[in-house]
């Protein structure tokens, strides 16, 4: 503080100089709460660690039971799951079509209901594809445990047919919802079959829509930061007591870093090229 004050005497005072003492007061106030959170987190982490070690003897029994069920249903999950997605998304699409048929182009209540139907549909398709990949992987888990060749081939076939069904269904429904969105907002551009769909869609968004995307992205960033932390704790506990190995911890760390660093580098890029970033048409 004294050194900083001495340095400042050799130049004109900047607005930030007046804030030095205020910043220190703010840090001191927040630091107390920060330390309590850190200590509480350490206690909770310790409890999780102790419980993981204490539960280790139960691990084999629990894992055998659970893995048996997962192994049995894994290859078939996408077939069942695909039907569920189909039912939900088809319902939302029908709901949209019915509302659109009676819309006069102005009624905001109807427009809101149509947007809700599209949002639910898009959310289900987005989650659908991700969960479909998981169920596909599940179908290959412990493959060599099936000794009967015919059942083994059947399980493989079910896995491939399942992921194919979910992928085709999700793509078709996304196409339908995107085209329905274009009915509400005719200025929108882009086809889901286009590799550059997201760029074209974003380019056709106006300032309000971009602001919505930016705010939603910020919220997603904050949520996934917390999700990565929780995931890391679970993977670490699993490594200690449940035989997960180092890979889950490593993968979680890598993905966490990718998210954090991509955010930071993009912030730096934007601040250097603000004129291009924020210019509005």
């Amino acid at each position, binding site marked *: 503080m004294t050194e900083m004050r001495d340095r400042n005497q050799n130049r004109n005072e900047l607005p930030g100089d007046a804030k030095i003492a205020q910043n220190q007061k703010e840090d001191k106030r927040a630091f107390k709460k920060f330390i309590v959170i850190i200590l509480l987190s350490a206690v909770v982490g310790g409890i999780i660690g102790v419980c993981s070690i204490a539960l280790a003897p139960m691990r084999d029994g629990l894992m055998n039971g659970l893995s048996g069920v997962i192994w049995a249903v894994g290859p078939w999950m996408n077939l069942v799951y695909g039907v569920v997605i189909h039912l939900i998304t088809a319902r939302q699409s029908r709901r949209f079509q019915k509302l659109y048929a009676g819309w006069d182009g102005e009624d905001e209540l109807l427009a809101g209901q149509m*947007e809700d139907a599209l949002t639910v549909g898009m959310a289900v398709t987005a989650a659908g594809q991700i969960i479909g990949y998981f169920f596909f992987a599940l179908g290959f888990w412990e493959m060599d445990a099936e000794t009967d060749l015919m059942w083994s081939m059947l399980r493989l076939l079910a896995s491939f047919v399942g992921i194919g069904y979910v992928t085709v269904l999700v793509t078709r429904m996304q196409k339908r919802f995107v085209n329905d969105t274009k009915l509400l907002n005719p200025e929108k551009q882009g086809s889901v079959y286009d590799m550059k769909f997201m760029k074209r869609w974003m380019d056709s968004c*106006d*300032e*309000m829509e971009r602001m919505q995307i930016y705010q939603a992205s910020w919220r997603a960033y904050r949520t996934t930061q917390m999700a990565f932390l929780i995931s890391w704790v679970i993977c670490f506990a699993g490594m200690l007591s449940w035989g997960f190995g180092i890979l889950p911890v490593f993968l979680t760390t890598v993905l966490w870093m990718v998210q954090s660093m991509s955010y930071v580098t993009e912030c730096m890029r934007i601040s250097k090229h603000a004129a291009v970033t924020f210019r509005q048409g």
Partner: protein
Amino acid sequence: MPLYNHLKEYRTKLGVNQYEMGRLVGVSRQTISQIERGDYSPSVTLALKLAAVFDVPVEKIFIYEEE
């Protein structure tokens, strides 16, 4: 900060719907709807474009009041 507006009145006088209004200034129907409801404050550029459509000063359409 609240930004009130008379966009709906001016638009109605002009005889265009929200979609047509959006087309005139290069934004979506949804944006016009959100501006009219007061849920979205337009950028300076958009506010000036809207004022230019109605050929009135921007302060006639948008009113800023201290809370």
